[in-house]
């Protein structure tokens, strides 16, 4: 998977968000403030423009630009959360690419950051979590920034992508403080990430791995329906939040739908 692939993924995500905008907003109307579809559509429209304006060189740069743009254009809860997720996915890919290059070149680059172990949701390595990421974003997203320059030299493996999702998930949990079962996007993102890591370990083909991740995301989103929300706006409703699918979990499913679509096969 190269930069084209990631660009195609984000663009396909943008397309399906636009297509599903009103459904997402309707879900948010039921237990929130009726803007989730509008928010993401505005953000991903800006992402599309940003990507075509600057054509980032590597997979990591594509995702960092995506995340930074979402942070800059969406607002609300989903902007920082999705923005942070993409940014951490991007920095993870970039770091792993640098490691791979370093490995090939035999140089001794620091390898502590980026590789987040297992499927846990601990905070990622220092310097990548939380809000200082925004500062980094400004530097990294621009053309010619130091980090990310090397990553177009290396193909992203399924294991890399799984690690990236793990980093993204961890950052979302850190920033939003949500755990699985709180009826948020985490309820779709966490199982999908686990499925992807599992598939990578099992050596599955990307299409099959993405099928598994999408199925897990869908199941996770569906499983939010009976839950009572404990984070975000829906938590204000108390018991009345039960019986509705979480809009953020629903939009997370679309990320995996798009991933499956661009993988083809």
């Amino acid at each position, binding site marked *: 998977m190269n930069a084209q692939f990631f660009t195609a993924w984000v663009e396909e995500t943008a397309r399906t968000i636009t297509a599903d905008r009103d459904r997402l907003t309707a879900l948010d109307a039921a237990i929130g403030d009726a803007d989730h579809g509008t928010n993401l559509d505005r953000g991903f429209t800006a992402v599309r423009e940003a990507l075509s304006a600057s054509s980032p060189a590597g997979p990591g740069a594509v995702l960092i630009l995506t995340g930074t743009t979402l942070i800059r254009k969406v*607002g609300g809860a989903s902007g920082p959360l999705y923005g942070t997720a993409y940014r951490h996915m991007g920095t993870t890919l970039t770091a792993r690419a640098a490691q791979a290059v370093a490995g090939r070149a035999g140089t001794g680059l620091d390898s502590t950051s980026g590789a987040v172990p297992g499927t846990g949701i601990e905070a990622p390595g220092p310097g990548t979590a939380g809000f200082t990421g925004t500062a980094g974003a400004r530097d990294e997203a621009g053309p010619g920034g130091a980090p990310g320059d090397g990553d177009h030299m290396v193909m992203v493996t399924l294991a890399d992508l799984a690690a990236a999702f793990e980093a993204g998930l961890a950052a979302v949990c850190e920033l939003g403080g949500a755990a699985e079962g709180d009826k948020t996007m985490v309820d779709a993102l966490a199982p999908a990430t686990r499925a992807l890591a599992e598939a990578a370990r099992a050596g599955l083909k990307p299409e099959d791995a993405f099928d598994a991740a999408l199925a897990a995301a869908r199941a996770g989103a569906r499983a939010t329906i009976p839950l009572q929300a404990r*984070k975000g706006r829906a938590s204000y409703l108390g018991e009345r939040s039960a019986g509705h699918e979480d809009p953020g979990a629903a939009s997370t499913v679309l990320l995996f739908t798009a991933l499956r679509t661009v993988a083809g096969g």
Partner: protein
Amino acid sequence: MKKLINSAESVVTDTLAGMAEAHPDLRIDLAQKIVYRRSLPTPGKVGLVSGGGSGHEPLHAGFVGHGMLDAACPGEVFTSPVPDQIIEASHRVDGGAGVLHIVKNYTGDVMNFQMAAELCAEEGVEVGTVLVNDDVAVKDSLYTAGRRGTGATLFVEKITGALAETGAALGEVARIAGQVNARSRSFGIALSSCTVPAAGKPTFELGDGEVEVGIGIHGEPGRARVPAASARELARVAMDAVNDDLPLSGDVLVMVNGMGGTPLMELYVVFAEVAAYLREKGATATRSLVGNYVTSLDMQGFSVTVCLLNDELTRLWDAPVQTPALRWGR
């Protein structure tokens, strides 16, 4: 949906354009969506920045001016502003004494302001933050995102603004902001939903004989749906909720606030009931506001916000203020 707008996409910018035309005392950056006082920064004065989703007008932009905010950052409708806006505004209003961010407690607002604050700090702007969370309809527990910020935001902005005007230091300004918040509580009741322009239809549907109790300011459904009742009964529901959380006594500042679609006549009817309730509890509304101040688009309904006064807070409330929506004393 019928609204006086040109398009759902342009509504925030169009609103700001209208404000710019109507209020020459404001300077409005339409591209960045930031509303400033005309001359900034004021050297030695703590800069006050607030912001949040649009659709709550006059909050916040209508409270920019002498004795209140230095800048407001309106987001899209019901969507918090993005960090860029807040960072830019904080830089502009910093007169060397630091900047206070007044943030309503919503996940989105908190995260975006926090991101902005971290970057401001890195860039050398000292930032303090006060979280407003006055809405007793939401239990402040591990099982929620915490109490929402609603009507008390106006009180925090006004009183903190008055103190900042005296040249008080950031720590002191932040302290009074926290104090106002800690002494304030709100509760809201809707007679109708609002309609988010981009959504095009009401966020929830209420039957003709129903009201939604414990609503926020984003058209989120409330805690419960109950049969419609008289102003007297509804005022009592709201005041009981407030009083259960913060027993009312002594001098209080009270606001009966319309949600955007409720005429002043009805708000005065509610205010009469609120004042009677307070008297019953041995409290006195020595200061008050009645009007549409912290709104939720075209929602019909009201919220009531009470703040337990002390001499310092009363003095700061009375201090001159000169903004589009709040103006007295000079």
